[in-house]
């Protein structure tokens, strides 16, 4: 009966609502440093067999295919798109952008976390930390910049050095590592631009920047969010319309039930 229609249309509306949530978050992070946009992936639900293939119907006809009715759709996953964001030149010596696939590694009480937001700062102990609203996450391995440093220089291969007023040459401070994952989609999003490794993200591979597949460090620049406003707005419009269409189906199912309910006359 058309009750199934109502539920089928509801699954569509629910999935589209999730897609709208994803679009809303993408749009909200249009200015977030190194934000990677998400996408909702859809799949159809299972099918109910009205009649199995080869069954005989009332007229004695044998059908080659059965009759199966689909029960709607759902969101199978939200997939992150790791395509490179645009380079925003800031000329800040502690703004480091990654050109390539890698992630910076920072330490937290719950183990290592990974990030691509390269807006770093120096904390009270002289250590390089990731600038975040809640806490300064210390870069791993730690790099110390002493008090008397007058400038910080990062080479594209991740060699960090600083200059002082009493030395003519640069003094090395440490080496930066980058981490890559076979499946960055499997990383767990922690907010604050942080990601945590999971079983699904695969083994973390650490190497110097500049190694194949890792990416280079660009000093004085930030990676912009890779959200494309036009694309998101188009998605917003189509999602809203698709939602409306599904709500129309709910109305049609309701109307049919109403007509059926008024069938009996007294």
């Amino acid at each position, binding site marked *: *009966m*058309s009750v*199934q*229609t109502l539920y089928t*249309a509801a699954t*569509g509306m629910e*999935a589209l609502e999730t*897609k709208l949530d994803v679009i809303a978050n993408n749009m909200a992070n249009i200015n977030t440093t190194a934000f990677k946009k998400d*996408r909702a992936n*859809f*799949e*159809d*639900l*299972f*099918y109910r067999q*009205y009649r199995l*293939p080869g069954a005989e119907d*009332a*007229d004695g006809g044998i*059908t*080659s*295919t*059965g*009759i*199966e*009715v*689909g*029960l*709607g*759709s759902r969101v*199978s*996953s939200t*997939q992150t*798109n790791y*395509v490179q964001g645009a380079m925003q030149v800031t000329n800040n010596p502690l703004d480091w952008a990654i050109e390539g696939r890698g992630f910076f590694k920072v330490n937290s009480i719950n183990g290592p976390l990974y990030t691509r937001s390269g807006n770093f700062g120096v904390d009270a102990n002289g250590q390089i930390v990731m600038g975040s609203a809640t806490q300064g996450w210390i870069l791993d391995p730690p790099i110390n910049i002493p008090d008397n440093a007058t400038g910080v220089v990062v080479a594209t291969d991740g060699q960090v050095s600083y200059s002082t007023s009493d030395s003519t040459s640069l003094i090395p401070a440490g080496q930066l590592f980058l981490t890559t*994952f*076979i*499946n960055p*989609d*499997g990383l767990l999003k922690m907010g604050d631009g942080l990601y945590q490794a*999971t079983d*699904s993200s*695969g*083994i973390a591979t650490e190497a110097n920047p500049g190694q*194949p*597949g890792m990416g280079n460090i660009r000093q004085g620049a930030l990676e912009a969010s890779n959200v494309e406003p036009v694309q998101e707005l188009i998605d917003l419009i189509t*999602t809203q*319309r*698709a939602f409306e*269409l*599904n709500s*129309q*189906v709910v109305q*049609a*199912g309701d*109307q*049919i039930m109403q*007509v059926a309910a008024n*069938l009996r*006359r007294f």
Partner: protein
Amino acid sequence: MYGMYLSAEGANIQSKRLEFIANNLANLETPGFKRDIPTFQARYAEAIQQGQDYPGSQSINDTGGGVKLMNVDIDFSKSTFRDTNVDTDFAINGEGFFRVKDSEGQEFLTRAGDFDLDGAGNLMTQDGKYSVLDNTGKKITLDPLLPWTMIGAGNIEQDGDQIPLGLAQPQSLGDLVKVGNNTFRSLGPTTAVPNAKRDIRQGYLEQSGVSSIREMNAMIETTRAFEANTQLIQHQDTMVGALISRVLTS
């Protein structure tokens, strides 16, 4: 009273048709989805079904016997592609289906190429339920450390090795049954797509084959046909009511 049952059958089948429309519209955003087309057929009259008469006898018995749901066809025509820029998105330009396998080793076919890698480097479908196969039926596993790319004719190249994505087509598209999760099961044997016809585009996804306008039209048609059938039920009810009261008053 026979007519009443025929009208009820008509109303019933229209509400069933609405279920198909609901599923098509719910999958407006499902990649590689192919729309269902339910086909209806006129049923034999009661007397013919019971063997008291034969079809085409032109007697009073052969007045038509309502309607039945004959079968559900799947419209396999190619849908539009969408540029997604995601490396693990594939679209088949032309015929054929991707070969995928569930954990029990059963093989399925799909047109939805929104794949993803798992932690071990296996190419999987988006819900992680099926592994994507190469043309020999083995799982596709990529080296986590090395870059890979699609080099045309459906081959993935990594470190000089070429892995041909498994593409298969059934003998007849009518052999395919939908099982959900964007996959089809083939009731008959499948054959590999010949090399000349292998054309897979990386970074694109095949959109759903559902047209919202067509479905909305079908929906209006369905609700009106349902109403017409229920109107007929009421007319027949009135008729029978009038008959009874006339018999009683006479």
